[in-house]
């Protein structure tokens, strides 16, 4: 659906993005992660047709961005970082205007549907300037959806929302995936792992890692961690756990609580559960402890900066050591 090849954007001496290549498949939700100033917004602005790249090509829905910009723009819904709203218009007038500009045949109906989908129907007659931040963000989202575009580009869609609104917007985005192709940028990392099927981490305008959130986590650690808690630990619990095939190391954190490091291939969880139940220790908890995306993010974005350019992404980054389950 979206094919980006060797995209580069320079502002004078500053290189915002350099040689960025990636593809997004139809119906996929791709998360764009990176620290502020990494080039997320620049990439999204180029893909939305707002500004041309310095070099490289991008194709959206089969149309080349530089050759048929209008065709691409017809198929894209875009929510910029600063939500573009006219404060002097009412919500419904604004949405009808946007629908008409995008060539929708029945702007009034499209506006109604979009307001319904974004939960702002109760404010259709309110001036946008009088809306709260959360409502404005959702009006912006409604604007991006209004012409039922094949591709949605959302730049920090949940910024400035309260926790409940964030959950609502995330659910809305998830429900939009499948039919539509979505690229969203965020620097809220749990958001990326919750909403996105695939995550791209960019830093200083370069792609540093790209995979599913789960695989990214696993690949970077080189091992998988499990937290185990039993009700009645015995003296031999530690040695029994260590002897289970697939278990690399067991670390007793406190009495009855263990952190188990296991190989990536072959899940030892069934065997661990079995052993604990057999010995009658009373299994309380057995859960995988993923390295949080925060840690991956920090690893990639700080170590990449110190290393020379041109390294292989992701795999080259050394696995950080995890200490006592605390986030670094």
């Amino acid at each position: 659906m979206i094919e980006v090849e060797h995209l580069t954007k320079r502002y004078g001496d500053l290189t915002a993005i350099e040689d960025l290549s990636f593809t997004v498949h139809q119906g996929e939700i791709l998360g764009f992660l990176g620290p502020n100033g990494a080039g997320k917004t620049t990439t999204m602005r180029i893909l939305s047709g707002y500004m041309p790249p310095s070099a490289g090509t991008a194709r959206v829905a089969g149309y080349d961005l530089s050759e048929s910009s209008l065709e691409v723009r017809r198929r894209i819904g875009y929510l910029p970082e600063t939500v573009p709203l006219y404060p002097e218009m009412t919500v419904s007038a604004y949405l009808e205007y946007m629908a008409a500009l995008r060539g929708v045949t029945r702007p009034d109906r499209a506006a109604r549907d979009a307001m319904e989908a974004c939960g702002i129907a109760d404010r259709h007659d309110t001036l946008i300037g009088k809306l709260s931040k959360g409502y404005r963000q959702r009006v912006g989202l409604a604007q991006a959806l209004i012409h039922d575009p094949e591709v949605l580009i959302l730049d920090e869609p949940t910024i400035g929302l309260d926790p409940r609104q964030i959950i609502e917007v995330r659910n809305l985005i998830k429900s939009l995936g499948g039919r539509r192709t979505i690229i969203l940028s965020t620097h809220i990392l749990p958001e990326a792992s919750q909403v996105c099927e695939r995550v791209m981490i960019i830093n200083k305008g370069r792609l540093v890692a790209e995979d599913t959130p789960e695989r990214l986590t696993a690949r970077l650690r080189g091992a998988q961690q499990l937290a185990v808690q039993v009700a009645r630990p015995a003296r031999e619990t530690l040695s029994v756990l260590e002897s289970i095939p697939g278990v690399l190391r067991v670390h007793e954190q406190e009495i009855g609580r263990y952190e188990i490091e296991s190989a990536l291939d072959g899940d030892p969880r069934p065997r661990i559960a079995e052993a604990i139940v057999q010995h009658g220790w009373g299994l309380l908890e057995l859960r995988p402890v993923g390295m949080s995306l925060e840690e991956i993010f920090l690893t990639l974005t700080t170590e990449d900066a110190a290393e020379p350019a041109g390294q292989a992404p992701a795999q080259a980054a050394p696995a950080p050591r995890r200490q006592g389950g605390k986030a670094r």
Partner: protein
Amino acid sequence: MRNTWLIARRELASYFTSPIAYAVTAVFLVVAGYLFWVILYYSREATMRYLFYNVTTLLLLVGPALTMRLVAEERRTGTIELLLTSPVRDGEVIAGKFLAALGLWALMLAMTLVYPLLLKLLGNPDLGPIASGYLGLLLAGGAVLALGVIASTVTSNQVIAALVAFGLSLLLWLTDALQGIASGTLGSFFSYLSMSTHFYDFAKGVIDTKDVLFFLSLIFGALFVATRLLEARRWKL
């Protein structure tokens, strides 16, 4: 064409939801009314010729006030991103904005139609020169507004946009002053370039195709330049 109309309609509506349209119209009508009365009091002539000359001065001040926010404001608030990522040509954006400003100017001129009506009640004015004068004001207004659109496209600061618009219009209004300095072809070129030269005929009651063409090409030329500038701004974002 449809997009142009959509943008023009929104822009015109937004004039009236902000105080700008009311303030500018009020100032314009008060000053124009005062001029009308003073001129009538002293000249005792049922003509609007002198008023037309004076209204052009007013136009040089009012025009930039109407155009200064057109593109600059969208750039400042970020809504320009919305327009430029919609399936709308840059030329349609510029044309829509220009038409909104021209619409408001036409409305302001329409409100001064009470003056010829008063003249008709009080005396026996020649309606021909009045009609041609209004046409001239509409065309000259279009030119000043088109120059204002250029100014609004190059900056996100409304004050700068207004000042640049005023400067451009004033210079193009007064190039005929150079006629005395440069002689021959160059002198007549400067005279030709001047908006005031072309406006005088309209005020006198003469509709010359050359004058109409001058203003129309100035309008289209300025809108073309504005479109190119908007496109160029994409590259420099």
